[in-house]
């Protein structure tokens, strides 16, 4: 096909009036046409072999949609399959996330709670305490996180039973012990008191310096200490008094006592720094019924003022 002749024919028809000018113009265009002739000489050469290879690939694609050549049903199958796969992935994700999510048990203020763990161990939780453990508890480990105070009766088991509380670790195999660890106590002190068996108690910072307790012994650790120490016998008179709904404090700072009363009676106690001022107190109450009696006593002894508020008391000097 001769392109030049085609171009001339069309332009001749449209530019009759000035034939000469048109001819000059036409020459220029023809020249331009010729000049572009070689610009794609660097185009790739496709060999017969390459053509055959490409054709094979196309045939493979054809076989992906069925014999009749209708692409839709197969496409739909793939789409359904992909959708199912996506759903399965999402389900697995949710299941996995669920399994990784720890179990929480928290006890409201003013109440205590009993709990039996999957391995048969029992926990008695004091007011306001919270424990957290994996859904795999008892199968790959027996690890518990504690905030607050609880009494553990641990059943013997191949797996070590460990309680992590405010930077302390208490490890046991089969025993019963009380563990008190409040993050709002001074120095986040953790106190472990062993009733029977044996426990190993250490801080997460220095696991190489543990304390080994035998029945009847107590040990404490707080943020200011490097390693835990044994508590002198009698220094804490009734560490598990709370289990019988008693209140017992041995040389405890007023802050600790007020915090305990808040949790036990589910009330709010406001006190300023001047009111507690590092003062300590030793006291015991047998199954007290109201917070007011206790607080009235404390305030009288320590020379503090007690006033009622909407949801509790205010204590000032």
């Amino acid at each position, binding site marked *: 096909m001769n392109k030049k002749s085609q171009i001339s024919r069309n*332009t001749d028809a449209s530019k009759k009036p000035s034939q000469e000018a048109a001819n000059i113009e036409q020459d220029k265009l023809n020249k331009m046409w010729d000049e572009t002739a070689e*610009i794609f000489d660097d185009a*790739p050469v496709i060999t017969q072999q390459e053509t055959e290879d490409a054709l094979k690939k196309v045939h493979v694609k054809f076989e992906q949609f069925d014999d009749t050549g209708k692409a839709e049903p197969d496409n739909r199958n793939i789409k359904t399959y992909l959708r199912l796969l996506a759903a399965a992935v999402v389900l697995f994700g949710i299941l996995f996330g669920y399994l990784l999510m720890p179990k929480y048990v928290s006890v409201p203020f003013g109440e205590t709670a009993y709990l039996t763990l999957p391995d048969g161990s029992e926990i008695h939780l004091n007011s306001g305490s919270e424990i957290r453990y994996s859904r795999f508890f008892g199968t790959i480990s027996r690890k518990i996180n504690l905030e607050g105070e609880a009494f553990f009766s641990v059943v013997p088991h191949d797996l070590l039973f460990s309680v992590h509380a405010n930077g302390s670790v208490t490890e046991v195999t089969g025993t019963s012990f009380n563990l008190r660890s409040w993050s709002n106590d001074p120095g986040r002190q953790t106190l472990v008191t062993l009733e029977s068996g044996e426990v190993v108690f250490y801080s997460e910072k220095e696991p190489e310096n543990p304390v080994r307790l035998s029945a009847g012994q107590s040990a404490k650790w707080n943020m200011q200490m490097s390693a835990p120490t044994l508590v002198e016998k009698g220094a804490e008179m009734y560490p598990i008094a709370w289990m019988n709904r008693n209140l017992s404090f041995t040389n405890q700072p007023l802050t600790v006592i007020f915090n305990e009363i808040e949790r036990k009676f589910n009330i709010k106690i406001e006190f300023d720094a001047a009111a507690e001022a590092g003062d300590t107190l030793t006291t015991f109450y047998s199954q007290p019924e109201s917070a007011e009696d206790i607080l009235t006593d404390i305030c009288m002894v320590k020379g503090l003022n007690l006033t009622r508020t909407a949801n509790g008391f205010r204590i000032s000097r």
Partner: protein
Amino acid sequence: MDQNDKEAEYGLCKRLIGSDKRALDELFRDMFPKLVGYAWKYTGQKESASDVVQEAFIKLWKIREDLNPNESVKAYLYSTVRNLSLNHIRDNSRVQTGLKLAYLNKEAVQPEVEHWDETKKQKMKLIKKWISELPERQQEAFMLSRFEGLDHEEISLVMNVSPRTVNNHIMQALKNLTEQRDRHFSNNF
């Protein structure tokens, strides 16, 4: 396109509609190198050009039952290859090229033809640049006419316009290119 070609194409199209795979093979063997050359002018890479053309044939096979034997299968292939090439450029270029010929815009790519000297290479590069700057429809018509050897009637089928409009586009493209060249040489000499 003469009468024999037309009849051959009509027959081939009929066989395609009847799901004759050998008809597709014939068409493929005949058209593949030409279409790759065409796609390459857009994508600038032999690999992607080949992929684009294969995709066009797969599309053709999928819609074969809806083909009209009175319309040109070749025209369908050229317009499909062009559209797929432009999609390819759109999806693979970090910078929007404005759907122009990607290869022509590439400053870095030097034509590799052994017998070309530097002056000629520079000149060819310039012309490519000017073509890439043509309005889209003019560019399409010019490319199909000049480099793919399609006649005006075939181009009119590819572009879905009348053969007269095709001619106008080509004439206008040539005029624009001539003006570019005149401007360039008056500026440089």
